[in-house]
C-alpha cells in the first residue's frame, strides 16, 4: 500500500490567498479592454467559487455587476485516461458573444484543461477576447498557453501536487504543496 506522504507544505494562507485574488481583480480592471463587457467563467470545481470571489471584489471596487458562469470541461477533454472528473456538472454560461471572457481556475499545469475550456467556450459563442486567471501556475505546460493573471508562480516537480483549498468546498482557505510518494 501507499507509504504515507510527507506533511503538505503550506504555501499560501487565507490572507495571502485573499490578497492574491484582490490583486488579480485589480489587474483585470486595469487593462485597456475595459470591464463593461467582462464575463468571468469558473472551471469546475474550484474555479467556480474563485470566479465568484473575484467578481465580488470587482463589484465592490468598480460598482459594476460582473456576470459569472461555470464551465464543466469533462465533455471536451483530450486526455481520456488521465484525469476525467468523476461526475459531470451542468455548465451555466451567460451570453459570451463579443464579451471579454476571463477563464478562472485554481491551478495551471499542463494547460490541457484550459484548451478544453476554450473549445467549450467557442461552442457557446464568439467572445471578443479570452483571457486566463489562475491562483497558481506550477509550470510543466504541454500546450502553448500562458496565463494573463497569476496569483503565485510555484516551480514544482512533476511528482508534486498542488492543492488549492477553498472554504466553499474544503472548509478552509490555503494553497498546499504535497510530495507525492507512492
Amino acid at each position, binding site marked *: 500500500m501507499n507509504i504515507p506522504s510527507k506533511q503538505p507544505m503550506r504555501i499560501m494562507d487565507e490572507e495571502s490567498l485573499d490578497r492574491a485574488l484582490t490583486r488579480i481583480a485589480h489587474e483585470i480592471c486595469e487593462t485597456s479592454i475595459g470591464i463593461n463587457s467582462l464575463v468571468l467563467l469558473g472551471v469546475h*470545481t474550484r474555479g467556480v467559487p474563485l470566479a465568484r470571489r473575484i467578481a465580488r471584489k470587482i463589484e465592490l471596487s468598480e460598482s459594476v455587476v460582473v456576470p459569472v458562469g461555470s464551465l*464543466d470541461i*469533462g*465533455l*471536451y*477533454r483530450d*486526455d*481520456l*485516461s*488521465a*484525469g*476525467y*472528473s*468523476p*461526475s*459531470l*456538472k*451542468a*455548465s*451555466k454560461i451567460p451570453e459570451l458573444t463579443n464579451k471579454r471572457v476571463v477563464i478562472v481556475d485554481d*491551478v495551471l*499545469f*499542463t494547460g*490541457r*484543461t484550459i484548451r478544453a475550456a476554450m*473549445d*467549450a467556450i467557442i*461552442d*457557446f459563442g464568439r467572445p471578443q477576447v479570452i483571457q486566463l486567471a489562475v491562483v497558481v501556475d506550477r509550470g510543466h505546460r504541454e500546450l502553448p498557453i500562458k496565463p494573463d493573471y497569476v496569483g503565485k508562480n510555484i516551480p514544482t516537480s512533476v511528482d508534486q*501536487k498542488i492543492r488549492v483549498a477553498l472554504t466553499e468546498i474544503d472548509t478552509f482557505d490555503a494553497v498546499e504543496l504535497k510530495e507525492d510518494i507512492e
Partner: protein
Amino acid sequence: MSTKIEAQELKEKDPMYSLGRKHVLDLDDFSSEELETIFSSADAMAEVMSRDIKKVPSLRGKIIMTLFYEPSTRTRVSFEQAGKVLSADVINLAASASSSTKGESLINTTRTLEAMGADVVVVRHPHSGAPYLMARYCDRLRVINAGDGRHAHPTQGLVDLYTVRQHLGDVSGKKVVIVGDITHSRVARSNLWGLLAMGARVTLSGPATMIPMDLLENSGTYSKNNNKGIGDIEIDTNLDRAIDSADIVMALRLQLERQELSLFPTIREYCKYWQVNETRLAKAKQNVLVMHPGPINEGIEITSAVAHGIHSRIKDQVKNGVAIRMALLQELLLPKTGDDV
C-alpha cells in the same frame, strides 16, 4: 470459452470506468450512488441539449451500434441522437435487414460486431435474456439492454427515475403506483428495481392475471383478499384503493398484441377497473405525477385528458430520454482516474 457463466459474472465491476461496470443489462444491481452518478451527468447533458450547437466532442472516435430485433421509435432514436450529440459514430442495424434472416446466431452476430470495432452495442430483442447471452461473448464490446422480452428495459427505467427525481427531488418514502400489465412489462420490472434502490414505496396494480406470480409467491403473505408484497412492494388489484394518496402514478401500455392470451375479458372491462382517469386521479395526492413509458393507447390505459393534462410528465419522459442515454454512454465509455490535471 465456457458457456456456463453465471449472470452475476456478467455484472463484473470495472473500476477503470466511472460507472464501474462493463454492461448495462438491468437496474436490479444498481446502487443509489451509481444512479446518482448517472443523474448528475444527465443534468450536464440536458444543458448540452439546451444549447444552440448541440454537439460536444467527448465520444469522438467511439462506435455505437444499435441492433433492434423489435420495433422501436423513441428508444432507438434517442440512443442515436445521444451518440451523435456526443460525436460518436452511430450505426443502426435493423435486424430484419441483417444476416440474422440468413440464420446467423446472436452469438456470431455479437462476435462480428466486436470484430468490426464497435465499442457498444445497444440491443433490443424479443427474448428475455438475449443481451445477457451477448454479453458472455464480448471481450471488449459493451452491451446495453434496450429491452429484452418481458424481462428488463433499464434505460427506460433510468429515464423514469430521472423524471421523478426532477420533479420531486428525493424519491425515498414516496408512494408510486404502477398499474397495468405488470407481467409482460419490462419497463415495470426495471422501474421497480430502480425505485426500490432509491427508497420509494411501490404498489403494483392491475388485473390479477397480469401480476407476476413470482412476486405474489415470494411475498408469502399474498392472499386473494390482497396485499403485502416483498420488501416495500405492495400489491393491490383494486386501483381505486391503490391510488389513494399516491405521489406518482405510472400507467403501462396495454399490450393489445397479447390480447389472445385472454388475460382480461374485454377492453371495456379493463378500462372500467384499471384506466387512469380524472376521477381516479382525484384520489391521489394533489400534485401527483402521471407517467407512461409510451407508446400510449389513448382512451384505454389512460384517458387523453390525463395523458395531456397538468399532472402528466409524459413529454418530460421523452425529452429526458436523450439526456439519460447520453449520460449512460458517457459514463460507460469514458475511463476515470484520480486528479484534475
